[in-house]
């Protein structure tokens, strides 16, 4: 038996459930020498914002036990440069390309998405039931991941991501502007992720992805100041994996749309925890830094596990938890 690995996210069928997380993989080419890009189910790009963002003051990263903090601050060249310099290359990818969109206001999110829609042109769906990789004409953008949850931007996304009303409104406004897959990326920095996931669903999202990073801080006790220039940063890596799995578990029971799980995935078993918790797909973030082949190894391991357990469709794993 050859297990079926494809996963449907709204209009988009991913060839396999394993993607690489926004902000940890650049726009794909950075890891080209080390990673078989064609093996990836999806590439979630670094955040795209309306204006170019140089990013936060330095230092921006620090290691923590089994984790790291980052305060990159959505450093990116802005939507125009993205369209000009990154889009052409992204059209050549086999993996689904999901543009991660961020903004400081509803208008900004909308403007970025509109510009990307315009540049990528209309959504071309592959023949019914086939993964996007089977599509002969690729547009460079196969979906959007709306980052309403970045802890590293002042007056930024975080306010959105913790308020169900704002999440629903923003999602609905974006939904009205695209036929592409629309994924809302949620923050774990809330008392309960379920209402936020439901708000995204109500707004018309095709999926929710979670988790973004947890707010954290490291203080340099010799220099008497926070290590990161911005004070706090976002915690990622294996340390947060149990938090991510719990969030995926809750969200999967709160909504009918697919949940995409991430946070601390370092190996196939970690990814399987997310899938068993109810996620339909996963992303590898910090894991790529530690071992660039993590996503490939995760995919391999999921396939082997499915063969061993006699599971035919990867999407079925979401219902297997006792």
């Amino acid at each position, binding site marked *: 038996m050859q297990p079926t690995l494809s996963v449907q996210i709204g209009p988009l069928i991913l060839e396999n459930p394993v993607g690489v997380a926004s*902000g*940890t*993989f*650049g726009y794909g080419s*950075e*890891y080209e*020498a*080390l990673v078989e890009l064609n093996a990836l189910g999806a590439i979630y790009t*670094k955040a795209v914002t309306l204006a170019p963002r*140089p*990013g936060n003051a*330095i*230092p*921006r*990263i*620090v*290691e923590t*036990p*089994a*984790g*790291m903090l*980052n305060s*990159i601050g959505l*450093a990116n060249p802005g939507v125009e440069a993205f369209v000009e310099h990154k889009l052409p290359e992204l059209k050549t990818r086999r993996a689904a390309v999901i543009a991660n969109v961020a903004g400081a206001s509803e208008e900004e999110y909308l403007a970025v998405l509109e510009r990307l829609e315009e540049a990528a042109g209309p959504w071309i769906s592959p023949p019914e039931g086939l993964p996007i990789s089977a599509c002969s004409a690729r547009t460079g953008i196969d979906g959007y991941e709306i980052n309403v949850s970045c802890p590293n931007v002042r007056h930024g996304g975080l306010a959105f991501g913790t308020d169900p009303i704002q999440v629903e409104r923003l999602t609905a406004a974006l939904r009205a502007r695209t036929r592409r897959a629309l994924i809302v990326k949620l923050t774990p920095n809330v008392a309960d992720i379920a209402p936020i996931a439901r708000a995204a669903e109500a707004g018309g999202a095709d999926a929710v992805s979670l988790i973004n990073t947890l707010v954290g801080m490291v203080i340099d006790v010799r*220099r008497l*100041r926070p290590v990161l220039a911005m004070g706090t940063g976002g915690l990622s*890596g*294996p*340390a947060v994996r149990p938090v991510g799995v719990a969030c995926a578990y809750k969200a999967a029971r709160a909504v009918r749309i697919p949940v995409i799980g991430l946070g601390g995935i*370092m190996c196939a078993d970690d990814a399987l925890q997310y899938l068993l918790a109810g996620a339909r797909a996963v992303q590898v973030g*910090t894991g*790529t*830094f*530690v*071992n*660039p*082949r993590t996503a490939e190894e995760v995919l391999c391991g999921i396939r082997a596990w499915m063969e061993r357990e006699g599971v035919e469709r990867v999407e079925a794993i979401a219902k297997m938890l006792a």
Partner: protein
Amino acid sequence: MEHFAARVLSNRQIAESWRELVIDWPAQAPEPGQFLTVRASPRFDPLLRRPFAFAGFSRERCEASVIYQVRGEATRLLADLAAGARLDTIGPLGRAFPPPGKGERALLAGGGIGLGPVLFLAREFARRKREGVATGEDGLSPALACFGFRTAASVPAIEWPEGVRIYTDDGSAGFAGTPSSALAEEDAGPGRARIYACGPAAMLAALAALAKSRGWNASLSAEQWMACGVGACMGCALERADGAGFLRACADGPVFERDDIDWAAEAARAAR
């Protein structure tokens, strides 16, 4: 750049808390200034890969070396590696030292953790001289290659390329003084020399200032914490001197030119 399990060939102490690691290097040949990253633990604490500059490379034997200081947990784990062990390695990474321009004297200065890349450069000059490949002002060798240490006990027991000068702060070995002061005595005219350096931020700032005042070029290797090491995460940013944002130590550097970065500001940040 390649990702592979390098075999440890040797890993010996060369000074107090300093070691030299030699690994097989079946991959693309590294150049001076470039670095590799290693995963020190199969578990997740420490988590991130650690960057180390190449300190030497033998094309004949396909062996690369790194000189490292035992500082924290990752380097402690490295120090435990015995010959025959495998080390998860990615490299070569980053921008190498550019060759000196025509008529430019090469002035090399290495200090502390910056020993490796400058030593590698000095070794390459020596090799080219041996092999008769033209580089540098006279086409064959650097005008000066200086390495600074605190005291005799911290001077690594390694084979130094011919002509290299050792400085110690207290004069207990080699010359008394610092590589920076040595370079300041050079009298090349504007555009007639290029400084190559790696070391403490204060030393780099001093050398950048020296180069500026003399009208020399300078190729300086900077340090910054890294997460990905390949240009994907924007974690290793350094401020551009022109205020137009940031440069990535891993992919735009680690070797930068004199005016890319505000070296004085970097030194101030490091001292803060």
